[in-house]
Structures are given as structure tokens and as C-alpha cells.
């Protein structure tokens, strides 16, 4: 039902206005006429039936009055006369009078086959089929004397009702027809102006002819609508003109702005290109600077060291030591400046690898020990292995180069500012949870200490605690600033406690991943030279460096083969089996990266010769590139005998173990 209503409504909604008016009027008229005809029909039917009932009631009362005496005085003949008189009523089928004992007293029937009805027990009117029965009791002096039952044929009544119905239907149809005719004629009064307006609107929307105007035909709401529409068209025309003008202006403005933007874009592009070029140039400059400064330092330090070993006890030892110390100092300054510029660029990239921590520290202490002892200081290292983990720990995941840099700086500072006494380096791990911990290292000296007021300057760039100190102690005041930046980059923290004249204590903490080491630590003490080791291949294009390197390796007790470039190295590696390959990176023809790749390619599946990059470019990116090219370790120039010895010894040993494992089973991957 609701759906059909909705459909009818939506159907009407989509009709043209003229048909819509027609439909609405017809529907309204239909509803009204239907209601009126129904009410009229109902009232008429009710009136017919009520009239008949009233008629029968009146007849029964007359009959009662006439026949009561006959009943009282038992005179059916007289009563019969009254009853028979009703035969002139055409609809009366039968009339029966009963005694008070419900015996038939007298009756009249139109039908010859009539059988008297039983005496009524209910009174008033009763409808049954085509018959209307009316029953009444006869009382005299409040005493029941008899009963009357009148039976009426209601067919004439039904015929009258039916006639009334058809008259209603005829009125309905007539009414609708008149509505249809009148609405069809009169609706044009409404629809014509609307259709004209719609036509004008359509023309305007299709042909954009805003000059057209609708014609006003009447002064009603549609007339007002036409006026408003025409006024709107006037406004649109006016706005159109203004808009056109504004558009022209806007187009010119856009054109000018576009040109301006284009030229600015071009400038920006050039500026970006220039900036990019500058960045590249800066990086290249830094790399080149590093390389170029280190390259001459390499032979200076190397030869000074070599001569020191040879002339340990001669008088020249002191001068040689000064040369080496100065060169080393210069090297550290260069490293600091380059590192600081890298940090300032926001270019600190951490490259973590797994290292045996204690071995790493012992190496470092070993390296610094010479400097400390030269000043008459004792440098000791102690690891507290009691907290949570046994002594045999530990491999840790950390950026080895950065950690080394931090420790070198802090220990170097301690040596620098301590004139007598000792420097103690201690380390321990705080266990956070399984596999995670915090590395804590404390460097304690008995040096000059720091005034409390100077503590806040401590980790700032280019600042030393005192101007006079700047003169007294060499350095640019970058070391601690670099340390702090690096520690923070590794999510750690650094602080310092000091009392003037009594010494300082620097402590830093860095979160690390821990891994217990099953290797016996005692076996990690390094011999400086080993007998029956495989020879070492040194690949270096610079003759001075090649010669220095070869003499250093020889002094360590190894046999050495030298190659001046990558090609020669490949040739030599084909014919010999080397314990370690020391490979320079910056070489003409085939550089170190290409040579490493070629060497790896040349190796058999069960062979892995450790390749150690030896380069003056000490940047972490460079180190990462070396590892990616298939090299195993990285040794920045200038070469220092002790450092070289430890790295070579480490890889020689690993190579041996790998060979043993290879004989026993599948090869293990390089570190």
C-alpha cells in the first residue's frame, strides 16, 4: 500500500505541471465525491431501513390497539378483519397475532402455503435474508394479552437502496467529468505563464541568450516570479559584464604571475642545483682533505715508528718519538675537524657490528699505553664482570669506529691533562633484560681537574676550560663536543665529575645488545708475531706507503708479497695462498672495491681470505662501502704498527679457525 502510494506520488511528481494540476484536482475531487457519495448512500440506506422499521412499528401499534379488545373478549373474527386490512400493504407478507399463551389467535398471509411462525420471544426488528420481522407484545392494564408478528418483504427496500447506490455512482462520474472538463479548461490560466517562463529558461540555459525576457501576463504570484526572473537576468547580464572585465584582468595577472613564478622556479632550481653541487663538492672536499692529509702522515708516522723500534735505545729515539707524537697529534686534529664538520652536517651514520668488547678495550689500551708511559703515567684497564654475567662476556653490537673514537678522545684528554699519577679505564655492563644492557665506561685520571664554574663549558665546541690552557695545552677544544654528539647519537649519555687539582672522572653510558661469548678469553691475548703463518699480500699503489707497509708487516714476523695495483694482486692471489690481504682503496686502474670483488670472485667456495681495507679515507660511509664490497675489516691510515699487528693477528687467527672448520664442515661466514 505504501509502495503504491509512493509510486503514485512519484509518478505525479514527474508529470508536466498541466497534467499535475489535472491529476491533483481529479484525485481531490474523487476523494471528496467518494466520501460524499458514501455518506449519502449510507444515510439513505439507513433512512430506508429506519423508515421501514418505523412503518412496521406504527402498523403493529395500530394493530395492537385494534385487536386488543378482540383478544380480551376472545373474538378472532373481529381481529381477522383488522389483520386482513393489511393486505393492501404490498410489502407485508404476513401478520400473526398470538394469545398470551403463544397460541396463534389470528393471522394473515399473502402466500397460500404460509405456515404460521412460532410466537416471537424477542421483540423489535429482526432482519433475515429478504425479510424484515417486527414483533411486539400486547399489553392491557400492564397485563400481557398477546403478541404481534409482522413479516415484511424487503426486496423493494433493497431495490431502493440499489437505486440510491447507482445514483451515487452516476453523481460521482458526473462530478468527475465536470471536474475534468473545468480543470482542463481552467488550468491553462496557471500553466501557460509557467510554461512560457520554463521555455524562456530553457532557451537561456541552452543558448546562453541572456537578452531574452519572459512576458508577464498576470499580476499574481507567477507575474511576480516573471518580474523577479527578469530582474535576475538583468543582474546576471550586469555581473557577466563585470566578470568578463575581471576575467580579463585576472588572466593578465595570472600570466604575469606565471611568468614571475617560472623565473623564480628557474632561479630556485639553479639555487638547488648549486646547493647540491656545493654539498657534493663539500663531501668530496672533506673526503679528499681527509685522504690528502692522511696520505703524507702515513709514512711520517710509519717510518718514525719503524725507526723508533729500530733505534729504541739510541739518542735519536727521543727526537723520533717527538716526530711520531707530533704527527699523531696532527692526525687526531685532522680527524677531529673532519668528524666535527660531519656531525655539524647532521651526517652521523652509525654502523653497528658485533665486537668482542674486552678484546676491543685491551687493544685500545695497548695503543694508548705508549703515550701514557711516555709521560710517566700508568694506564690501566679493568672490566667488572660480576654483575649478572660471568667473565667470559661479551660480544656487543655497537659502532666500533665511533666507540673507539670516543675512548681515544677521552683517554687522550686524560693523558694530555695529567702530569703525574695514573689513568684508570673501567668498564661494566648494566643488564636491563635478556640480551639488552647498558655499557658503562669510566675514565678516571689524577690530572689537573676542572673548576666547577667551568663544568658547563666542558662539552661545548671550540672551548677549552681556560684561555691560558689553550696556550698551555694544544688542541682546538673539539674532542669532548664530538664525544658528546657521538654518545647522544648512540642514545647514550655522558657526564663528568671533577675536583680541581685532584683529577677528573668522565663516564658515559650507551645502550647495547649483549651476547655471551663462549670463546675462552685467555686465548685472545695476541702474539705480535706468529711463526708458520701464511704470507700477507699488501696491495698499495703509493711506493712509499708500500715500502713502509711491507717493512711493518715484516717487522711483525710475517712474509709479505707486494702488489702495486688490483691486477697484480689478482695475479698473485691466483698463484699463492695468503693469510691476510691488506688492500689500499684509492688505486689507479682497478680500485680497492673492484679488486676486493674480483678477489672474492676468484676464490673457491671453501676459501675465504680475510681482506682488510687500508685507506686514508676514514669516514664511516667509506668503511661501510668496503664491507659491502666483500672486505672483512677496515684500517684507516696512517698505519701504526701496533694497530696493524692486532688486526692482522686477529684475521690470521680467524682465517686459521675458518680453515679448520672448513676441513671439518661447511665454511662459516666472515665477520
Amino acid at each position: 500500500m505504501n509502495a503504491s502510494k509512493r509510486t503514485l506520488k512519484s509518478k505525479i511528481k514527474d508529470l508536466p505541471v498541466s497534467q499535475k494540476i489535472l491529476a491533483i484536482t481529479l484525485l481531490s475531487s474523487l476523494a471528496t465525491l467518494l466520501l460524499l457519495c458514501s455518506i449519502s448512500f449510507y444515510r439513505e440506506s439507513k433512512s430506508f431501513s429506519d423508515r421501514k422499521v418505523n412503518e412496521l412499528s406504527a402498523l403493529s401499534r395500530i394493530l395492537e390497539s385494534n385487536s386488543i379488545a378482540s383478544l380480551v373478549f376472545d373474538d378472532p373474527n373481529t381481529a381477522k378483519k383488522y389483520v386482513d386490512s393489511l393486505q393492501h400493504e404490498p410489502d407485508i407478507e404476513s401478520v400473526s397475532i398470538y394469545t398470551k399463551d403463544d397460541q396463534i389467535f389470528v393471522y394473515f398471509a399473502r402466500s397460500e402455503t404460509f405456515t404460521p411462525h412460532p410466537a416471537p420471544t424477542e421483540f423489535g426488528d429482526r432482519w433475515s435474508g429478504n425479510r424484515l420481522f417486527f414483533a411486539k407484545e400486547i399489553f392491557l392494564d400492564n397485563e400481557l394479552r398477546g403478541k404481534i408478528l409482522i413479516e415484511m418483504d424487503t426486496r423493494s427496500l433493497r431495490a431502493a437502496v440499489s437505486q440510491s447506490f447507482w445514483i451515487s455512482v452516476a453523481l460521482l462520474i458526473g462530478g468527475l467529468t465536470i471536474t475534468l472538463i473545468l480543470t482542463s479548461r481552467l488550468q491553462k490560466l496557471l500553466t501557460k505563464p509557467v510554461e512560457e517562463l520554463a521555455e524562456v529558461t530553457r532557451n537561456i540555459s541552452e543558448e546562453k541568450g541572456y537578452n531574452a525576457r519572459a512576458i508577464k501576463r498576470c499580476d499574481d504570484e507567477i507575474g511576480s516570479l516573471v518580474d523577479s526572473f527578469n530582474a535576475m537576468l538583468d543582474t546576471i547580464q550586469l555581473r557577466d559584464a563585470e566578470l568578463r572585465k575581471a576575467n580579463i584582468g585576472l588572466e593578465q595577472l595570472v600570466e604575469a604571475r606565471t611568468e614571475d613564478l617560472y623565473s623564480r622556479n628557474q632561479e630556485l632550481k639553479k639555487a638547488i642545483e648549486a646547493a647540491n653541487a656545493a654539498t657534493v663538492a663539500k663531501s668530496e672536499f672533506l673526503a679528499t682533505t681527509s685522504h690528502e692529509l692522511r696520505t703524507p702522515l702515513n709514512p711520517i708516522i710509519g717510518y718514525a715508528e719503524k725507526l723508533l723500534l729500530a733505534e729504541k735505545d739510541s739518542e735519536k729515539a727521543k727526537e723520533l718519538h717527538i716526530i711520531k707524537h707530533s704527527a699523531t697529534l696532527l692526525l687526531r686534529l685532522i680527524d677531529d675537524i673532519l668528524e666535527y664538520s660531519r656531525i655539524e652536517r647532521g651526517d652521523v651514520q652509525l654502523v653497528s657490528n658485533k665486537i668482542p668488547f674486552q678484546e676491543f678495550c685491551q687493544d685500545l689500551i695497548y695503543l694508548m699505553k705508549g703515550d701514557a708511559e711516555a709521560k710517566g703515567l700508568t694506564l690501566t684497564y679493568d672490566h667488572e664482570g660480576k654483575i649478572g654475567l660471568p667473565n667470559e662476556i661479551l660480544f656487543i653490537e655497537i659502532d666500533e669506529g665511533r666507540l673507539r673514537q670516543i675512548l681515544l678522545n677521552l683517554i687522550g684528554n686524560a693523558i694530555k691533562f695529567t702530569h703525574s699519577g695514573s689513568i684508570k679505564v673501567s668498564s661494566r655492563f648494566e643488564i636491563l633484560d635478556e640480551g639488552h644492557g647498558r655499557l658503562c665506561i669510566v675514565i678516571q685520571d689524577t690530572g689537573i681537574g676542572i673548576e666547577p664554574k667551568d663544568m658547563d663549558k666542558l662539552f661545548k665546541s671550540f672551548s677549552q676550560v681556560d684561555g691560558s690552557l689553550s696556550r698551555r695545552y694544544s688542541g682546538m677544544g673539539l674532542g669532548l663536543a664530538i664525544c658528546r654528539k657521538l654518545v647522544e647519537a648512540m642514545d647514550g649519555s655522558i657526564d663528568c665529575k671533577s675536583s680541581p687539582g685532584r683529577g677528573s672522572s668522565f663516564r658515559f653510558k650507551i645502550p647495547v645488545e649483549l651476547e655471551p661469548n663462549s670463546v675462552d678469553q685467555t686465548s685472545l691475548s695476541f702474539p705480535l708475531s706468529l711463526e708458520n703463518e701464511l704470507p700477507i699480500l699488501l696491495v698499495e699503489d703509493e711506493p712509499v706507503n708500500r715500502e713502509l707497509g711491507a717493512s711493518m708487516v715484516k717487522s711483525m714476523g710475517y712474509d709479505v708479497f707486494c702488489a702495486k695495483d688490483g691486477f697484480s694482486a689478482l695475479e698473485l692471489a691466483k698463484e699463492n695462498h695468503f693469510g691476510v690481504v691488506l688492500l689500499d682503496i684509492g688505486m689507479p686502474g682497478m680500485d680497492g672495491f673492484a679488486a676486493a670483488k674480483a678477489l672474492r670472485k676468484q676464490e673457491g667456495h671453501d676459501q675465504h681470505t680475510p681482506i682488510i681495507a687500508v685507506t686514508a679515507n676514514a669516514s664511516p660511509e667509506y668503511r661501510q662501502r668496503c664491507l659491502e664490497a666483500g672486505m672483512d675489516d677496515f684500517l684507516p691510515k696512517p698505519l701504526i704498527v701496533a694497530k696493524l699487528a692486532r688486526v692482522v693477528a686477529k684475521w690470521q687467527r680467524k682465517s686459521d679457525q675458518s680453515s679448520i672448520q672448513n676441513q671439518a664442515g661447511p665454511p662459516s661466514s666472515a665477520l
Partner: protein
Amino acid sequence: MLKLRNIRLVAACLASGIILSVTQESSAQTLQINELKANYLVGFSNFARWDGTLNTEEVSIGVLGSKELINHLNQIAKKKTDGRSLNVLQLQPGDYDILNKVNILYVAPGYKNDWPKLFEECRDQGVLLVGEQNGFIQSGGAIKFVFRENRLRFYVSATNAKRYGIKISSTLIELGIDSL
């Protein structure tokens, strides 16, 4: 001789039996007729209108003679619960002083000599006179019972009734055998 005597005895018995049975039947009929008369007398009160003083709450019917009729009227009066109550009075000849309490007076056969005086007394009292002896209407009575075609019918004289200040309903007049 004996035989003849026996026959006479049987005949006598038969005759006495027949007579007895006829008498019994006649007695039963009399009772029924009296009951009808009583009902008719009560009915008359509904079809007559008295000028003046009839108490509408009560109808008094006086009976001169016929004890059975009085009995029947008393029975009806006892049964009556609705409508006007019925008061039955037994009159003796010469009881004229209570006529003012009577609305309808039934005069049984056998009091013809009393009629002139009785009718004279009743004229002022508005009494509907009902009788059944021949000449009752002609003498001034209003209604006279008659037994016709085995049914109790009656004559009505509206003119006589009017003389006594009583109007008889046309319905009742119509039911009467002949209006005199």
C-alpha cells in the same frame, strides 16, 4: 313379570345415569362460563370511560346474585399484581347505599323486579349495568351477556350507558353482537 321389572330397573338406572352425567357436564360448563363472565366484566372496565369520579387506581365490581361469579372475580383480584386493583362487592337487593362505590354492577338473572328501582339508583352513581336476562337492555341496562354459537358474546347499548354517564369504546361496541 320379573323380567319386565328388571328391564324397568335397568332403564331407570340408565336414565338416572344419563341425567347425572348431563347435570355434571352442565355444572362444569356453568363454571367455565362464570369464569369467562368474570374476565369479561374486568375487561369492560378497560373499554368504558366514566365521567367524573372513577378512581383510576381501582375498579369496583359489584355482583347481585351469582356467588360463583364473585368467587371467580375474587380469584382474579388476588392474582392481579400490576395495573388497577380490583375490588369485588357482593350486593343484596336493596343495598342501594353502596352503589356509589361500584363502577360495574352485574345483575344475575332473577332480580327483574328490582330493575326499575336499581336502574333508578344507579343513574346518579355512574354504574355500568351488566345483566343477562331478556329485556335487560330494553329496560335500561348497558351490556347483556348472551351465549351464542357456543361462545359467550354480549349486546352493548352505548345509548343506555351514556345515560349513566359512561362512554363505551367503539372497539367494544364493535365486538358487541348488535348495538341496540
